[in-house]
């Protein structure tokens, strides 16, 4: 160790294999000092400018921010905040093309500068020596510093390494042609960089700090030597100019002669490499309190008039940089972010500068010729001679082309640093690096798939086992049933009874109030439904949509980072997030205070639990309501009966809740799927809702009869319905004259969703769904109807209303033209008959039979609805609509 340090101090520099000597092209951008640019009109600050998770957004659209104000705060692994580069207004927060070779959109904060450039409050540290390790790391973290040499690794993670660091290596090599950002920074701010180094030394206490600079930067070397004079532990080492000596691993080898083992990080062998720009940023953050909001960017290339370095605010669009420096594009212009060897071309110049952007290169076709056609590899292995990692690029290329991924791994593809030296020298102009990148991506995908397949297998087997076990248990239970019944069943009944009692007992006083409130709310809601609240609904939908989208994205990002390795969690989290968003929306609708339930913790169960919790909360809230009303009656006389009654009460309460909920949901539902569609749908929905309301008034009696399609089925259904009605009647008898109000409101509530739901949905699938829901609701409503034995005309009416809707919708989605036609014909016939009947039954509307009739109308319309064929459905719908209109008229006439 001592010997090694001595050798280094004597100026020994090791060598790396391979390497190339592309023309430097650095002089043209070093003639002038680093320039300041006028403020751009717009800043696009990407939330993710580093390796790791996004920070958590803490600002919102329309907010005014100050220069240096944090836009995100760290959350989760390796997340680093971003800050407002200048003061101004946040005009939008949306995904924008990112500074990544793929340019895939990344959530970005768009700031319109107000021109004031007002700083937020800064907290410079005067005596950094007094700071503890953690405090210092925290400052670096909160200042949003990530590696500025290109990779964007969070600096605080490196600074906080728990491994013993022997050598702090400062990367000032800047081996890529054209780029002079670090060079100029060193010439102008050597003191700041050295101060940054000293802060790092304080954090890591290395034995030696080596600054590696290529010998083509004599000015920078002189400046750094001068600035580092006072500190013995800092050595400025000159390395020969060869590309890619600035690669982290290559630099370590050059300066210390050691190699970082494959798959390890430098810290594993006691090394830590920091870029000079990063160290300058550390100094700024600590001594001046300024977060990382700007960096030096080289703007160069022959199409740029004023080639040089500029201080660019993070988020400055590339276009602004180009325009400020004078840009006259050529046909087939390439705009490269980074250097000519490893940089990537941009598909648009509307991409913001990020923390790792060190150069914008806009070459013409003379200086950097377009790549020629790929020719056959002649195995000259010039690539192998150039490879700094001693790989066999041409072998890798053959394997990559033939997709022999095992061989690629065997030939250490993943040790390739993609420096491009091989492709640079290839006489056949084979885009070698591109092949490797694609192969790497494929291999990674394959590995991920392999893991997934493995897990799928496990899960499948676990499931199989579980099912078998359940089967077995069921069989066992069947065998033992008679015995079990005696104690087990009784116990259960007793338990249920006890629960019911307990509930009604201790919630007596409170529940009365709660019930009153709930009732009031329900009424209000009912009232609210009448006026056109589509405006509110729209807004709500939009909000919900946004929240959901954002959450989804976040969840996705966390997943993709690989930082949050727990896939399950993220999926569930996303689901929970979505569920919560919904819940929140519903909570406001329902005012059901009971809902804010324990936050779910368990992974899988969480989603389920949340859903269950919600349901229970609802049930509870409404059970109470019902209880109060039916209290005297539900006073348990008979064990069994009481349990049944309780169940009924609960069911009813739930229905009420759902109805209300559904009403709102139905309105909102159309929104999340597709933004555009949602807007259109909302508009249509509103229009339809109005129409529907009117129609509903008109239709009443006439329509319910139009339903029966299939005689046989109808008969069966009727039979079933009657049976149900009888049962219901019995039950009803037990639960006395459980107030009409409840039924009323429930029926009314039910009616609403039916009217709304189907109409706000444009496409067929949705209508089918809506119809299904509506049907379900209608059934429930009908049942309820049956239960209320003394059901008044009102109830029947409202019930009719409820039924009217789905019937008009139902045939729309029908599968089959023929069927639809037949159905329509039958319907017409029925309608006539019904009309007649209607006339007769007008007076006898109180009879149970009637209500069971209305019941019947439901199942009959069911079968055509499970439609699939869109075209047919559309035709059918058109026909049906025509029919419905006719029916309406008829109905009007009749009534």
């Amino acid at each position, binding site marked *: 160790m001592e010997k090694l340090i001595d050798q280094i101090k004597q100026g020994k520099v090791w060598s790396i294999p391979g390497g*190339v000597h*592309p023309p430097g092209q650095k002089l043209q951008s070093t003639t002038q000092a680093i320039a300041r640019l006028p403020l751009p009109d717009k800043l696009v600050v990407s939330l993710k400018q580093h390796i790791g998770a996004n920070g958590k957004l803490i600002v919102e659209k329309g907010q005014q921010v100050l220069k240096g104000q944090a836009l995100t705060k760290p959350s989760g692994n390796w997340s680093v905040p971003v800050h407002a580069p200048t003061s101004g207004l946040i005009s939008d927060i949306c995904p924008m093309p990112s500074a990544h070779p793929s340019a895939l959109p990344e959530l970005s904060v768009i700031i319109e500068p107000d021109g004031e450039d007002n700083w937020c409050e800064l907290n410079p540290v005067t005596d950094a020596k007094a700071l503890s390790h953690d405090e210092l790391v925290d400052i670096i973290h909160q200042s949003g510093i990530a590696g500025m040499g290109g990779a964007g690794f969070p600096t605080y993670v490196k600074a906080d390494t728990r491994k013993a660091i022997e050598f702090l290596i400062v990367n000032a090599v800047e081996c890529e*042609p054209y780029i002079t950002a670090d060079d100029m920074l060193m010439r102008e701010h050597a003191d700041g960089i050295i101060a940054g180094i000293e802060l790092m030394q304080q954090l890591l206490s290395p034995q030696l700090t080596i600054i590696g600079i290529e010998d083509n930067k004599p000015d920078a070397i002189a400046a750094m030597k001068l600035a580092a004079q006072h500190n013995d532990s800092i050595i400025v080492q000159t390395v020969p100019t060869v590309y890619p000596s600035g690669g982290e691993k290559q630099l370590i*080898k050059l300066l210390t002669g*050691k*190699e*970082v*083992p*494959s*798959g390890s990080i430098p810290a594993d062998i006691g090394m830590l490499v920091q870029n000079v720009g990063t160290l300058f940023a550390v100094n700024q953050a600590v001594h001046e309190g300024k977060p990382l909001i700007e960096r030096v960017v080289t703007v160069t290339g022959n199409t740029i008039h004023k080639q040089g370095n500029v201080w660019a605010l993070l988020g400055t669009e590339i276009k602004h940089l180009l325009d400020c420096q004078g840009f006259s594009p050529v*046909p*087939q*212009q*390439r705009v*490269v972010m*980074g250097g*000519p*060897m*490893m*940089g*990537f*071309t*941009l*598909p*648009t*110049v509307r991409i913001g500068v990020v923390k790792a952007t060190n150069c914008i290169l806009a070459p013409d076709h003379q200086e*950097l*010729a*377009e*790549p*020629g*056609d790929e*020719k*056959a590899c*002649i*195995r*000259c292995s*010039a690539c*192998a*001679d150039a490879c700094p*990692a*001693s*790989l*066999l690029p041409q*072998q890798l290329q053959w394997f990559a082309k033939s997709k022999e991924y095992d061989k690629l791994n065997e*030939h*250490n593809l993943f*040790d390739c640093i*993609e420096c*491009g030296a091989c*492709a*640079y*020298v*290839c*006489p*056949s*102009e084979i885009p070698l*690096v*591109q092949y490797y*990148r694609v192969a790497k991506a494929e291999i990674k995908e394959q590995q991920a798939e392999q893991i997934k397949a493995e897990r799928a297998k496990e899960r499948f087997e676990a499931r199989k086992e579980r099912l078998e076990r359940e089967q077995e248990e069921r069989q066992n239970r069947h065998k033992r049933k008679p015995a079990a019944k005696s104690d087990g069943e009784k116990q259960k009944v007793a338990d249920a009874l006890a629960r019911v009692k307990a509930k009604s007992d201790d919630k007596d006083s409170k529940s009365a109030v709660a019930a009153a409130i709930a009732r009031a709310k329900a009424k209000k809601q009912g009232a609210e439904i009448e006026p056109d609240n589509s405006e509110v609904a729209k807004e709500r939908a939009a909000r919900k949509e946004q929240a959901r989208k954002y959450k989804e994205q976040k969840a996705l990002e966390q997943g993709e980072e690989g930082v949050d390795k727990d896939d399950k969690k993220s999926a569930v989290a996303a689901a929970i997030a979505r569920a919560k968003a919904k819940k929140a929306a519903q909570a406001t609708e329902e005012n059901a205070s009971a809902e804010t339930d324990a936050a779910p913790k368990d992974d899988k169960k969480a989603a389920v639990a949340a859903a269950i919790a919600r349901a229970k909360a609802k049930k509870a809230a409404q059970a109470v309501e019902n209880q109060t009303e039916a209290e005297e009656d539900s006073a348990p006389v008979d064990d069994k009966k009481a349990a049944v009654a309780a169940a009924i009460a609960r069911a009813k309460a739930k229905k009420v809740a759902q109805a209300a909920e559904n009403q709102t949901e139905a309105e909102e539902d159309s929104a999340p799927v597709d933004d555009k569609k949602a807007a259109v749908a909302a508009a249509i929905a509103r229009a339809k809702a109005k129409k529907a309301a009117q129609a509903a008034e008109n239709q009443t009696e006439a329509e319910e009869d139009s339903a029966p399609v299939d005689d046989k089925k109808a008969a069966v259904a009727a039979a079933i319905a009657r049976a149900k009605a009888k049962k219901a009647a019995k039950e009803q008898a037990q639960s006395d004259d459980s107030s009409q109000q409840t039924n009323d409101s429930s029926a009314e509530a039910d009616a609403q969703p039916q009217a709304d739901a189907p109409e706000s949905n444009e496409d067929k699938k949705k209508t089918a769904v809506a119809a299904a829901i509506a049907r379900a609701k209608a059934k429930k409503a009908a049942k309820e109807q049956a239960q209320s034995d003394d059901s008044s005309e009102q109830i029947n009416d409202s019930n009719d209303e409820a039924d009217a809707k789905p019937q008009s919708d139902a045939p729309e989605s029908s599968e089959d033209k023929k069927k639809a036609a037949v159905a329509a014909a039958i319907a017409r016939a029925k309608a006539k008959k019904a009309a007649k009947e209607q006339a007769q039954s007008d007076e006898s509307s109180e009879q149970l039979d009637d209500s069971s009739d209305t019941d019947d109308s439901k199942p009959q319309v069911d079968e055509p609805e499970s439609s699939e064929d869109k075209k047919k459905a559309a035709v059918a719908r058109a026909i049906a609509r025509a029919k419905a209109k006719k029916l309406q008229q008829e109905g009007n006439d009749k009534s």
Partner: protein
Amino acid sequence: MKLTMASSPHNHSHKSLSRLMMTVIAACIPGLIAQVFFFGSAVLIQLVLALITVSACEAAVLMLRKRKVWPTLSDGSAWLTGVLLALSIPPLAPWWIIVIGCMFAIVIVKQLYGGLGFNLFNPAMAAYVLLLVSFPVQMTSWLPVSDLLASPISFSQQLSVIFNGFTSAGFSVDQLRVAIDGTTMATPLDTVKTDVAHHLTVAESMSKPLFNDWFGLGWGWVNLGFLIGGLYLLKAKIINWHIPVSFLASLAVCSGIGYIAAPGTEPGVVFHLFSGATMLGAFFIATDPVSASTTNRGRLIYGALIGLLVYLIRTFGGYPDAVAFSVLLLNMAVPLIDYYTKPRTYGHGVK
């Protein structure tokens, strides 16, 4: 103006395939001049024939394979094959020898294997061996250096021999090969080999007019010419030093050992290095990147084994020269050599 997407790196060394091939062809010139000087301008006729044949064959196959003709043809690899073959066969061989050779080299050895970069064997050498095995008489009918000829032949006569088999005066190649003293001339290697087989000592054999002090008349100069061209290639970094150096070193060591062991029957190091196709093989044939080893250590082994084989076949084999055989044999061993000589990747094999 639209932006363009491209994959990094965005710049290039501007070394192109065709420039590489042309440089190699250009480096053949010193050797070619020497051949013309000593063996007559018939070489040029063969060269022209070869170039025409390879171009036609390459173009035809490319068209059959539905590839673009000019971009591939212009990379120069086919021409290089033609040049090397033309330099390898006896200058006065009949025209169909070179035509068959070129056709075989391009169509069978190169294109049927998938074209440039996919051929397992060096096309020129495979063709040479085919010709040697199929037409041993024509392929060994080397004329002696023109000074030694009974009757010097003019360019038109050479043309006539190549296309008609006889000079205008009616001499066949065999008759032309008869030297002033009435004996049939062969190449120096051939002569030594035959003489040693006839229990003459090397010294006795070398006292024949075919030889000067060190090596066969003319052949030494031809080899020198190729050496100069090869050194230029090294300097221009077209070829790596590994193969020629290990080839020549290995041949030198082997022949040196042989000479020490049996000075009477062994012609010695210099004779081996400057006879036959040694230099042509070392710098132009064994270094053919497509069929040679691709790792640096592999190249050393490859070159050394070729040197060894050349010596062994020259000394103990049935043929006077052995470069083509040795190269082909080692071509077969290349995948194996490459496999076992992978360089140590950065970060591997360290603690």
